[in-house]
């Protein structure tokens, strides 16, 4: 048991808190050059980070895990007499909840967007940062498709789809790149891959500050009716690529933003925005949508800034809008699903209550001591 006592050490707490302070400061400054998402990946979502490119240092995830363990052990080791210090107990319970809630959200949460022009409707949200390879029997299949996450693709790994004899092997995966056409390629190619946009090669691009802007690409080898051939998929393809199987059927494959099916069909009736008079400062923007929950059940909902619409664990926020060249307005909704959404709320309440109780108690005891002394 003694060897576990190190996890209850207050020096470990100081280390974790201090290192989190350093990471928070460093990660914030890092954002200026590299953007918020890369800073998040490198400093806060990592177990180990390479400081200055070579020095392995504890990452945010490792420190927060340690802090959680430390809180847990401290709770059992130090607070047997906890009822004398109820504030302290509440603080630690609240913080543990906060860390657990954050972890749960990180693992299970979904963040996506739905963009709609007036009169348009959708029942799926698109991920902002994740991509997938979709595989369908029909060219414009909306419902019947299979998908493989782009993040699961590794070089030389194999990809198969149900009810299909087609076998795919990953030859090249690029996180951010652009397709090149024949006239843009300098070296001679051994094999010209098939692509619906006539791309023949991929040019790697540096990481962008905003991963939403990343355009991934993948080169695959496929065994089809015409033997082994290479195909190249990029988000700029515009249309799926048809591949003929040995049995003569044609299947369609495409690289696209990852889809999340929504528990409703949402249709944008009207989008309006108002500005403070004579300025470009937005005062309000809102969308009037019709939510189709089933064939017979539908209702109108207004989604506006600070007033989202919630349904079965999903939340729809008015995020932004865009105006096209022909003055059509597109409303953009952020869509999230987070079953642990309320955990941080509870954790905030409990920890704050604990802090208030603890410091009031401390001050009270301090004053009592001074009175006694005087």
């Amino acid at each position, binding site marked *: 048991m003694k060897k576990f006592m190190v996890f209850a050490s207050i020096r470990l707490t100081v280390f974790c808190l201090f290192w989190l302070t350093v990471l928070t400061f460093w990660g*914030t400054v890092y954002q200026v050059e590299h953007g918020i998402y890369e800073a998040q990946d490198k400093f806060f979502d990592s177990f180990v980070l390479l400081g200055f490119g070579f020095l392995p240092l504890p990452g945010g995830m490792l420190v927060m895990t340690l802090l959680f363990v430390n809180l847990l052990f401290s709770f059992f080791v130090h607070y047997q007499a906890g009822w004398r210090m109820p504030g302290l107990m509440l603080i630690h319970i609240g913080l543990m909840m906060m860390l657990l809630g954050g972890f749960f959200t990180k693992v299970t949460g979904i963040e996506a967007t739905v963009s709609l022009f007036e009169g348009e409707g959708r029942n799926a949200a698109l991920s902002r940062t994740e991509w997938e390879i979709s595989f369908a029997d029909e060219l414009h299949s909306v419902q019947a498709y299979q998908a493989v996450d782009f993040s699961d693709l590794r070089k030389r790994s194999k990809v198969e789809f149900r009810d299909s004899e087609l076998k795919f092997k990953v030859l090249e995966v690029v996180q951010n790149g652009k397709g090149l056409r024949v006239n843009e390629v300098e070296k001679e190619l051994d094999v010209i891959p098939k692509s619906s946009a006539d791309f023949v090669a991929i040019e790697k691009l540096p990481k962008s500050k905003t991963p939403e802007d990343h355009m991934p690409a993948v080169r695959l080898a496929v065994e089809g009716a015409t033997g082994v051939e290479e195909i190249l998929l990029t988000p700029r393809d515009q249309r799926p690529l048809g591949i003929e199987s040995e049995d003569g059927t044609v299947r369609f494959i495409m690289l696209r933003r990852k889809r999340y099916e929504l528990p409703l069909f949402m249709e944008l009736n009207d989008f309006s925005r108002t500005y403070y008079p004579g300025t470009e400062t937005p005062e309000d923007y809102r969308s009037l949508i019709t939510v189709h929950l089933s064939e017979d059940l539908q209702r109108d909902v207004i989604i506006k800034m600070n007033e989202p619409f919630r349904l079965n664990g999903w939340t729809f926020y008015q995020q932004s809008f865009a105006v096209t060249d022909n003055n059509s307005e597109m409303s953009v909704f952020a869509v999230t699903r987070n079953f642990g959404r309320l955990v941080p709320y509870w954790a905030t309440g409990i920890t704050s209550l604990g802090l208030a109780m603890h410091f009031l108690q401390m001050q009270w005891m301090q004053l009592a001591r001074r009175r006694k002394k005087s």
Partner: protein
Amino acid sequence: MKLLPLLFLIGLLSGCGSESELDLPSKAVLDDVAQIPLLYNGRVMPLDSFSRLHMLQFSGRKSFNDEPAVQWISRLLFEPDTTENDAVFLINHPELLDAMGVERTEEIPGEKKPSTRRFSFTHLSPGILKLEQIAQQAQQIEEENRGLVELEALRVYVNVLTYRALGQVFAYARELPGLVLDNPEIREALQLSDEDQVYTYLDLRIRVGGLGPIMQKAQEEPDPTKWTDAQRDAFTLAKMMFTFSKNLSELPLSLLPEAPHGDSIWIAPMDGLQSPDGDQQLIMAAERAGKLAQAWKANDWEAVSENAEMITLFSRARMDHVRETALTGKEARFNRANYFGKAKVYYILTFFLSFAALLSGGNKLRIAAWFPLAFALLFHTTGIAWRVFLTARPPVTNLYGTFLFVGLICLLLSLLVEAFQKNGLGLFAGSFVALTFLFVADRFGAEGDTMHKVVAVLASNFWLSTHVLAVTTGYAGVWIAGVFGHIWLIMKVLGKNKNVLDQVRLPMEGLLGFGLTFAFLGTMLGGVWADQSWGRFWGWDPKENGALLIVLWTSVIYHARIAGIIHEIGLAVGTILGCIMVMVAWLGVNLLGVGLHSYGFTNAMATGFWGYIIFELIFIGVALAFIYTKKRKPVAL
């Protein structure tokens, strides 16, 4: 006989007095003018606020010499010629003057020294063409690549353009230069008497209907060469009036609401006069505005008051659904009351009295310090309360507001310490911090409208009053703990005994706890707001991180103290570093220019921010050096 020179002098002085009274509007007249509502920066505000903002924009000051801003702007609007020699254009970089080809100094009548920073329009006039060229070139350069002179040229050029445009707003009520109407037929049609030799656009606009029959007859004759002199003159006059109105349309003084009870579209008086819908009320209000300008020029203050009141009533009646329109008088009074300026004076008094009390240990001085403090507190609180009332928002919608608020909370926390300790320390620390923050707020106030509208995502009173109030209260707690940290270190350097040091340490610890509690609550409520608004509790945004830094750092101090890693000196140094954390969260993250919370931040503020951090680090270094040198033996941190 001996009294004759004296009588002469009295006569001369009284003559001067009466003349100056004739020239200048009384306070009551200015009050009427000051409260005229107009639309600027997306909100309805009184002419007084508009004037202060423009005065600040032009000169970096809230008034011109001793002349209130509203009076100077009124002169610019109603008789612009009288302002041309006023040195109001602030130029921070003399190189710009060189580039413009004008002198670096300007002799100001009545001033001993020539002006080197503020210049009149007359002084700058020869270089304005050059200024325009420099500004246009600067416009071509990308914003981040513009040098100081280019930035200055753009700023000054905008000011000159605004000055010129404002001077033209009431041109329609002034004499039209070079217009001669000597055709008797035209004069008769316009009902001009022999005395009428000076014409304004407004006069003609009212009477122009009289030209109708002449013009109608002219239209019956397709060949203009066969027109009579009167017909030709009528057409020339109509054309001149059209050109005049076109040139002076959409000037930057949105004085009149266009539609009754409708959208907040406010237009300049000249545009009101041309109302395309023939809105008679609007046209009459524009005429009133013109008469106001004429009355001002004629020093007819009674007419000025009457017309100003009528315009105010017109706008309020039309915009009765817009709350601010009814409050312009109150806002003008609030501006004039200068609560924060008065609070500063009393804080200075409190500071010196409490400092003297601390030095002498005198109880009478300490008690005496409470009197100015009571007034300072009253003015400070009243000022914030007025701002809340006028904006209908919590007091923390911008950096200016947060400094006012945090200053007040710091003061209240210090008074709590004073209530327990009764040694003058709370009075001293509180008055010092409140005073400093009021001065810093002034710096932010000089950047523009401090009661501006907030963007859509911030337009939530619930979250502004929970998250922002909580987190700024946390700033206050940690900051004032840091102030006590400074005092503790100074006392330690001065070799005070443990009892005295404990009187500082105990509140320091308590205030740090208070700061931690509210900083935590505020930070997490920020997460809740973010979750409610755009669906994620935490996104590692710089402002979120800044607030988290305060929470983490104060937690580090507490735990390090419990673990015995740091002792009293470490605690004091830790609280001072806590102040730096507060500044990083409050202002520093704005320097990064990333994330959802990035606001505009000027170079001067950035310099101030870095200057502050360097000062704190030097302070800590020097204090520690003194403490260690004095002891000549290892001291537990």
